[in-house]
């Protein structure tokens, strides 16, 4: 007896759904069933620290054993009590509108961002979003209140008018906007030259923001199994050149792989978690892989225990 595939399994079918919130809900269900044990499994699940009692604190959290041991009043603090601030940064430049199939990359990335927002929101974390192309625009500050998620969905659904990508300046602006420590999730194709944005990434990590990168590419961008001999025009710069894909495929594959290696090197250099996915991959798988990789990475590479609060 065969089981029916999950609704989120086919990106084509999912992206055909117009409603972004519905898409996020479907992917979310898939994510929850895909994770064996949620890292965000409950309220007060993980002790973080003690702090000294001060009048007005809730006596339920007074640690009587510590009082017995030390004759001092201590309040136990759990990780859920420290709400996480998250900002999802979505690339809406012209290059994200490319797609060899019926849906462009931006739809895939938009669904990923919406699902992440819902995910965090259900964890009672404060989550915000910002769209960027040449600069950051349409910023929704991190909040937790009724209707905020719908506000995020509406912002993510907005069709941008920008052309070129400027990840570097966008990251610099985020560093300026986020005064408090924030989990910054960047969803982009990262096709811009690495040297234009890696210094800004360094600034962001230096400000102790937790930065994660989710790179979304079209399969055709990886193997150039696309197009025909014609004038090829760059979506962002408008530069045109005659390209025959059968002739150019080998060189292209070499160059794009070199670029991807460079991107990965830049992220590793700054300790930024990086995950590459293609639009052919089911959204649920992409997210589960991303989250599980994050967990593993946090155990292995993150120096601070507090970094895993998300």
């Amino acid at each position: 007896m065969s089981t029916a595939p999950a609704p989120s399994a086919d990106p084509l079918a999912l992206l055909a759904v117009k409603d972004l919130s519905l898409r996020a809900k479907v992917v979310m269900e898939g994510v929850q069933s895909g994770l064996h044990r949620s890292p965000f499994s409950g309220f007060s699940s993980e002790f973080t620290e003690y702090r000294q009692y001060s009048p007005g604190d809730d006596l339920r959290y007074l640690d009587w054993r510590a009082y017995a041991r030390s004759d001092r009043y201590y309040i136990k603090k759990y990780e859920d009590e420290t709400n996480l601030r998250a900002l999802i940064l979505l690339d809406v430049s012209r290059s994200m509108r490319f797609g060899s199939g019926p849906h462009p990359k931006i739809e895939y990335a938009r669904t990923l961002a919406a699902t992440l927002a819902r995910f965090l929101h259900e964890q009672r974390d404060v989550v915000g979003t910002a769209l960027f192309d040449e600069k950051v625009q349409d910023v929704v500050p991190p909040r937790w209140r009724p209707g905020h998620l719908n506000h995020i969905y509406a912002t993510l659904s907005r069709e941008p008018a920008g052309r070129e990508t400027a990840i570097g300046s966008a990251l610099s602006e985020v560093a300026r906007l986020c005064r408090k420590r924030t989990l910054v999730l960047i969803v982009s194709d990262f096709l811009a030259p690495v040297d234009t944005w890696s210094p800004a990434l360094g600034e962001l990590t230096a400000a102790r923001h937790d930065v994660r990168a989710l790179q979304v590419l079209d399969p055709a961008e990886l193997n150039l199994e696309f197009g025909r001999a014609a004038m090829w025009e760059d979506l962002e710069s408008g530069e045109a050149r005659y390209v025959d894909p059968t002739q150019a495929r080998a060189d292209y594959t070499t160059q794009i792989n070199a670029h991807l290696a460079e991107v990965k090197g830049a992220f590793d250099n700054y300790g930024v978690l990086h995950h590459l996915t293609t639009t052919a991959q089911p959204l649920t798988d992409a997210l589960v892989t991303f989250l599980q990789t994050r967990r593993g990475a946090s155990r292995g590479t993150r120096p601070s225990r507090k970094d895993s609060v998300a």
Partner: protein
Amino acid sequence: MSLLTPFFLAGLALLAGPIIAHLIRRATKDRIEFSAIRFLNPSKPRLDRRSRVQHPLLLLLRCLIVVALALAFARPYWTQTTPPTASETQPRIVIALLDRSASMQPPARWADATTRVNAIVEALEPSDIFSLITFDARTEILLTGEQWQSALPSERPGIVSSLLSDQSPSWSATHLDNAIATALESVRELNESIGGSASSELLIVSDLTAGTRVAGLAGLDWPAHTQVKFDSVTAASDPDQIALQWLGWGTDLGAGAPARVRLIGTPGATPRSVSLQLVDASNDAPWAPPIETVMPSSGTQLASVPVSPDSPAALRITLPDTPNSLGQSLNLVRHVDREIQFKIWSDSPSSDLSSPRFYLENAITGWIDPATIADDPSQPDTPTLHVITSPLNPTEISTVKSRLEAGAFVILLANSPELAAQAATLAGETNWRASTTSRSNPLLFGEIDFGHPLFASFADPRFSDFTRIRFTRPTSLTLPADTRTQVIARFDNGEPAVLETAVERGRLIVWATGWGPRETPWVLSTKFVPWLQAVAERAAGGTIPVAVTELGDLSRLNLPAESTITALRDPDTAIDQLTQPGIYQVTVPETRPRLIALNVPASETNPEPLAWDIFEALGVPLSNTLAVSESVDVPTGDLPESALVSESRQRAWRWFVLLAIALLLVEGIVALVINRRASAAVPAPANP
């Protein structure tokens, strides 16, 4: 296949457009958007052979569209010598329609027409079925198809020739539509008799003037394989020719009513002076000095010819300076006013407002037929309408009775039993019982016979409201069972209100009430004067009949069946049928003789030819071998008529336009399929 406008074939040069477009490579237009162009190295373009045509099927379709459109504009047609669907084994039906209307009166024109009919007969094959129809306002079948078939082929031309020799043009109008309808009926009958659908041809021998009636052609159902061919006979028109048309009598401004006439000439002729002469029709002597007017180049002029009251009754207006032509003279009968005389038998003076006399005398002023009051009771011979409001003495009763028997009308207002008894005496009856009482609640008209001439003018629901007319002192009349008197109106209590009876040649009308304002508001109502005028006109002989009319419109003369007609110049010879223009005297027993004037129909006097395209507009299947004389205005310029008519009948250009539309549809579908295939060959980018 021939072309009506072959210069439109120059449009075939547009074929170069699609051919060049298909030879040009579309590589420069083909663009693909990509996100990471900086990782792509430019490729060397592959060169295709320049001579290769892209999508040859599309190119063929597009070229065919251009060719179809060019051919449609060139208006192609096919020339045929015989109708393509006619069966060679079946005989041909040929019906000649000979115009014998007034416009064919010129001897040369009539001779030409008969010669043409004879020529048609000579050209017929022995197997052809021929029928001959003459027409003016009346259509007559001179020779039926059966008669033609029953005659020996060698005798047939002689039969037709003898039939034609007995014919002559009439003075009636041309009703071509009736003639063609009759001919089509003959075609159907002949088709039924031969048991098939033979090709038929209607050959119309006519001068086709502008007055020819063709309106009835629009509703005709044409049998299959029927064609119409016009054989137009037109004599050379004289630009100085002028015809007169009767319009009517003008307003009498004291010097007699003038005669209003229209002068119809040739449009575009040089303006010139024309004199109109009023002539005594009895001896053709000029009666008044000629009237000068100017005939403008537009070809139409209106003129008013004074006719003094002392002029003779029979007149004629002629054009002495113009050449002899149809409608050159106009016969008239002078308009004479008809006087209606009233005699009011009343004791009251004219100034007594409570008497009906005052209202009667005021009501009869200003009538078109002048009405007068005869005051002298010693000469009661002439009055045609007597109104009795007061009781008469026995002498007066006998006087009125004699006038009544002689044809006068009498209105008697029986407002007392004495007057009611006198009414019975005048009616020649007895046992009329009457009583008069004052009523506190007045009576109304309860029942009125609107079909009777007395009240017929009020039959329309807008005028039939008599509820405001009340009667406070009606006379209760009871008639014997065997009375001849007809009750025209009754009061609402069922008693007679208005009665009429015939007394010899006269009529007695009795009102069972007086007309004084204290008795009824009838004389003050708006219905009183029209009612009185209708009675007076009836007493004077009814509506004045028309005295001047056209031949073919004789019904307007309203001639009784027992009338005797004689010509003005020859009063001793009675005429059975009015067929020629002139002035005639009509005598009806026991009435005064009256004169009538008959003229040539105005439609026949118009020298203009009929607009040729009217037949095409009316759906007449014209033959492709027209024989039209030079003077008919054919709007084709230098082209032969047969080409234009054939093309307009076949209308092949419509099929080429339809072909072009069909090719366009196919081309669109093919282009769509090619595009889809090209798109399916390589994945299309999703970016906008």
